[in-house]
């Protein structure tokens, strides 16, 4: 059915995009791998073979150990917080209350804002000053008599990343809410009604019927949020700048490469990030395309 002329035209029209993707994604990844295996340090490229030394050095590097710890803390708090809050909001909005659209828009608007803006504002909200210089959320807590909640936020030793994850939850939980809400709306109403007739309480329905049916949504959200936390960068830069205590691989990569000119090491961090993201995303893409093909 497809004519030859059209077939050729097709290829001509799509090849610039495919070529761009091939070069800017796949060839560049290959190039990065090559840099990560080189001794390149300084402004001029140096591709002298260095084996896996950049990687083994990283695994022995205390700064990289801090990065891994921070990424784990951030991922744990951010993913768990966004999933729980997102689910909670979606269930509330699923009750057919008036003003649902208004609340939904309200919970989603932080998604439209950049991490930089979020970071700049949250840095002032999470002002750790105590005593007479109390401000931000700590001041708000003292207004309502909850002084004990006052926190050092991101300046808390070891656990500062959890405070940064809080700002990220503010930004991204609306997204999880939207995913869950779409999932809830796709569940046939009859299922719920049947359970009601059987005498199940609202709570039981959500716990034993909705939640299991939403497992695919939870899995998608888990993967999307998880891969975002591996890449977290701008939010931390805007809240804390480049502090060692709040370092993550993406910041280390940036600093090692563009401030320190340790290109080999920077590339190695980039490749490690790519491997960890790929481990999450490749099975996800395969699974999604397979289910799509079955439909």
């Amino acid at each position, binding site marked *: 059915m497809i*004519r030859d002329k*059209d*077939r050729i*035209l*097709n290829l001509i029209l799509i090849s*610039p*995009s*495919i070529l761009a*993707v091939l070069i*800017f*994604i*796949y*060839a*560049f990844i290959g190039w*990065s791998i090559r840099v990560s295996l080189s001794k390149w340090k300084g402004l001029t490229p140096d591709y002298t073979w260095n084996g896996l030394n950049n990687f083994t050095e990283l695994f022995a590097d205390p700064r990289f150990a801090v990065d891994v710890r921070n990424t784990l803390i951030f991922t744990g708090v951010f993913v768990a917080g966004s999933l729980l809050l997102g689910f909670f*909001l979606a269930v509330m*909005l699923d*009750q057919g*209350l008036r003003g649902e659209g208004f*609340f939904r828009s*309200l*919970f*989603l*608007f932080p*998604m*439209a804002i*950049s991490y*930089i*803006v979020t970071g*700049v*504002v949250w*840095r*002032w*909200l999470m002002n750790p*000053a105590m005593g007479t210089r109390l*401000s931000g959320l700590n*001041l708000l807590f003292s207004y309502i008599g909850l002084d004990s909640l006052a926190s050092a936020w991101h300046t808390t030793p070891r656990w500062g990343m959890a405070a940064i994850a809080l700002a990220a939850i*503010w930004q991204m939980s609306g997204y999880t809410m*939207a*995913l869950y809400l779409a999932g809830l709306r796709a569940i046939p109403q009859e299922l719920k009604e049947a359970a009601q007739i059987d005498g199940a309480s609202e709570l039981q329905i959500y716990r034993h019927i909705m939640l299991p049916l939403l497992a695919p949504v939870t899995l*998608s*959200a888990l993967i999307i949020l998880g*891969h975002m936390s591996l*890449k977290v960068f701008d939010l931390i*830069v*805007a809240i804390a700048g480049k502090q060692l205590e709040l370092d993550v*691989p993406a910041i280390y990569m*940036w600093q090692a*490469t*563009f401030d320190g000119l340790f290109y080999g090491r*920077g590339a190695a961090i*980039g490749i490690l*990030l*790519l491997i960890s*993201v*790929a481990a999450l995303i*490749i099975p*996800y*893409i395969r699974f999604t*395309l397979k289910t799509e093909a079955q439909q």
Partner: protein
Amino acid sequence: MKGLRIGKNWLYLPLIGMAVFYLLPMYVILVTGFKSFGEIDLKTMWNLPRGIALDNYIEAYSKLAPSLWNSFSMVIPAAIISSFLGSLNGFILAKWKFRGADFIFPFILFGMFIPYQSILIPLVQFMKAVGITGLAGLAMAHIIYGIPITTLTFRNYYASLPQELLEAAKIDGADMLGIYRYILLPISLPSFVVVLIWQFTSAWNDFLFAVVLTGNTDWPITVALNNMAGRGIISWNVQMAGSLLAALPTLLVYIFLGRYFLRGLLAGSLKG
């Protein structure tokens, strides 16, 4: 059923509580922005302004105006071009399957998720080598790295259209460009809105590409705001006003076209 509804009114309590949580940062931005310099004090951060003063906005705008315009001049062409490319690719991948189309698609998709740190060094080297620097280079990066998501959105949309639509046109003798131009393009408007908004928002909000590809004369707004806030010279009240200026374009798009924004969001998780 009616009794049940009334029984659910207590739900407004947690909902309003959550609304307050989401609005807190916006509240601080807004009230701080409208205070006069004389009222600025971290200790009275939560107090309402005594009047409407524009000192902070004037100061922030005078600092950020050039980078706001840098952002506009880079983001608008980038969003338009990558949307158009995505529509063409999506059409070809969905309706004119060539051999290997299904093989290529997952590789394009993967590009949507990669951490850009893994291509950053080659990107900077390449742009320098070919001499595409500053805002043009940044726009080019947004166009190319936007291809996966724009292609995905359009492919899914075109794939949902009945094949008969094309078959009928083919019988009428229309060639593939004719079908694209006269049949698909006119009905793609909603998808174009979704993709344009998505690309506009992500390019406007990007920091990583901007910080490595531009210098201080062509910084877009995210980099300029971060540098203004990070130096510690500019006081926090001006930072708040600057944050609003930086957030306003995407916020307005969200307020007026939120429905389309949500669809882009879901497409970004492959769920469109």
